[in-house]
């Protein structure tokens, strides 16, 4: 059986990749994907703990996260389309109307 720590390290790597992508990339869609990557990194640690502790709680959490992520994807993509239509760009640095 694969030890728990392997899963956790993989989860941390995935999450860190997500953070890095979020911070580095300017394209809003890439940022969006980075968020999904972070979410899935967390999901991985949830199921890993669930398997280790022989508990269903972790699975339940993961389902909730997936549902929320799906909803977020729908709303987020809609926002992205709306932003693109008005601003004609996907570069987040140029979406700065609220800046003083």
């Amino acid at each position, binding site marked *: 059986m694969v030890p728990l720590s392997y899963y956790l390290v993989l989860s941390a790597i995935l999450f860190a990749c997500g953070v890095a992508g*979020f911070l580095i990339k300017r394209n809003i869609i890439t940022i969006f994907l980075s968020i999904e990557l972070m979410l899935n990194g967390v999901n991985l640690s949830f199921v890993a703990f669930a398997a280790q502790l022989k508990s269903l709680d972790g699975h339940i959490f993961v389902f909730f996260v997936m549902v929320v992520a799906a909803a977020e994807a729908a709303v987020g993509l809609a926002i992205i389309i709306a932003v693109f239509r008005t601003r004609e760009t996907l570069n*987040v*640095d140029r979406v700065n109307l609220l800046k*003083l």
Partner: protein
Amino acid sequence: MSLHLWIIPLLPLAGAAINGLLGKRFPKALVNTIALGFTAAAFAMALWVAAQFAGLSPDQIPHIERYATWLSAGPFSAEYGIYLDQLSVIMMLVVTGVGFLIHVYSVGYMEHEGGYYRYFAYLNIFMFFMLTLVLANNYLLMFVGWEGVGLASYLLIGFWFLKKSTADAGKKAFITNRVGDFGFLIALFLLIKHFGTLQYDSLWPLVSKYPVESGAAGLLTAIGLLMLVGATGKSAQIPLYVWLPDAMEGPTPVSALIHAATMVTAGVYMVARSHLVFNRAPDAQMAVAVIGTLTAVFAASIGIVQTDIKKVLAYSTISQLGYMFMACGVLDYVGGIFHLMTHAFFKALLFLAAGSVIHGLGGEQDMRHMGGLRKYLPYTFWSMTIATFAIAGLPPFAGFFSKDRILWSTWSSGYHVLWLLGVVTAGMTSFYMFRLWFLTFFGKYRGPNPETAGHTGAIHDAQDAHAIGGGHGHGSPHESPFVMVIPLMILALLSFVGGWVGVPHSLAGSDRFGAFLSPVFNEASATPGTEASVAAESKPEAEDHGEELAFSCISVGLAALGFVLAWWLYYKRPEIPERMAKAADGLYTLILNKYKIDELYGAVIIQPLILLSTNVFWKGIDRGLIDGAVDGSAAGAQETSDAMRHMQSGNIRSYAGWVAVGAAAVIAFMVWRGVR
């Protein structure tokens, strides 16, 4: 038996409330109906109460009515209650009676003035506070009235507040009175601390247990002296008299009511009310007598050279109040209150008559521009004549009996120096009053020519911003309307006969006033069950009247001398005074400038205070410390925000970076502490 005395002060308060709150929309006739109606009702009620009071048996006096507890704090409590004895009956009658007459007079005098309703509301509220002052059954309630009349005085002095000197005079009166009130308050605190009560009926037995502090000054001397400080403020005695001459900026009826007849006598009333304290404090009592006498002679000397008719009367008021204090100081409280009453009559009359002259001349107050007015204002002339004879102390007018009583009791108490000063003052009083009389009513009219005065009348109005005129054209001087003349006549009658209630035994009179009032000051009856230790009033009855008569002759002789001198200088040879003034130029100027006391106070007290306030309190503490702290914290917040602002770049990735750094910091912290 309840006499429902609470109604008396509340009647003028009701008038003040109605006129003050709603009067702006009322026609003038309604305003003065309300003001006069409530005042007349108060006077009628006072008369009824006095009649009931006469029917009380001696053991029912003082008649005390308690309505409610006003405040109680621990063992101390003060009531709403009324204390009716011979003293407060007299004060009540004087206040409501003279007050009512002056209300009537004001209807004519203030006819052309703006703020008519305001004037009557203030006048009524003054009556309310004055009645509270004289009827209260404890010092605290008296103090409410005491402060209230100060407020009313301030409001009425500053009635024409658009003029700067008027507004300043109001402030001066108020602030000077505050200095005195400070002393009075400390006296009250001492009473509370040592006796635990301010109710007259429970205070007197406690005070009367104290021995006379003849050797060393003690508690009662301190209380007496502090009360005297309060009285000097309210009653315009040295050193706090300076506000009263300036108070003449107010309307003349106000000067008559507040600054001559009633409010300024509150100090005398207070000293008389506190006679048990003063009886036991010879030093304080001595101070009262000395201050009274000095004020009398000092103010009289200033009055001699004043040219403004109201200023002469103002200094004369200060001087007469000095007599009252002199009487209280030599423990002749009856004489003090007697003079208070007669003075209320003749001084109110003098002011009202002077107001009538000013009214008739369209606002002219300078006696140098008057003269010969007896042809134009006959009623005013005759009432003024009676008042002048009364104040000069010529028999059989009212002032003779009261002033002579004071002088005699001063002499017979052994204060011979004070008596001498008092008699000199009597001569000076006679002189400056007849000077006023001759300058105003005799000789040739020195104002604008009556025939051509039609257009110069306007100059008068311009000269004096609070000219009575404006409404009606001022041609030649004219007599006042009857609504003003009738109060003059009534007061003239009172000034004539008012003294007859106190004709001394030496003149084969029965001194009914003294017999009526003296039980108040008789210690044995005031404090049943204690030994009367002080012989305040007990002048032996079987006295040799010859000596007293001789002294009366001296003062009458001096009064007559004053008359003759005034006649010689201001009627027969009117050019002499000018030459005399030139001859004694320095002295004349000094007295004309009121001994430069105002300037002295300005230099010694006011200027240092202003400098201290400006440099330390304003620029140092207020602007430096308080404003500095406030501005500093505001500036600090701004600087910090300015630095922090750059974090809000609007760049999403930088926000995300902060979130990541924060999360990392939290995780690092948890790892470092060890996750639980």
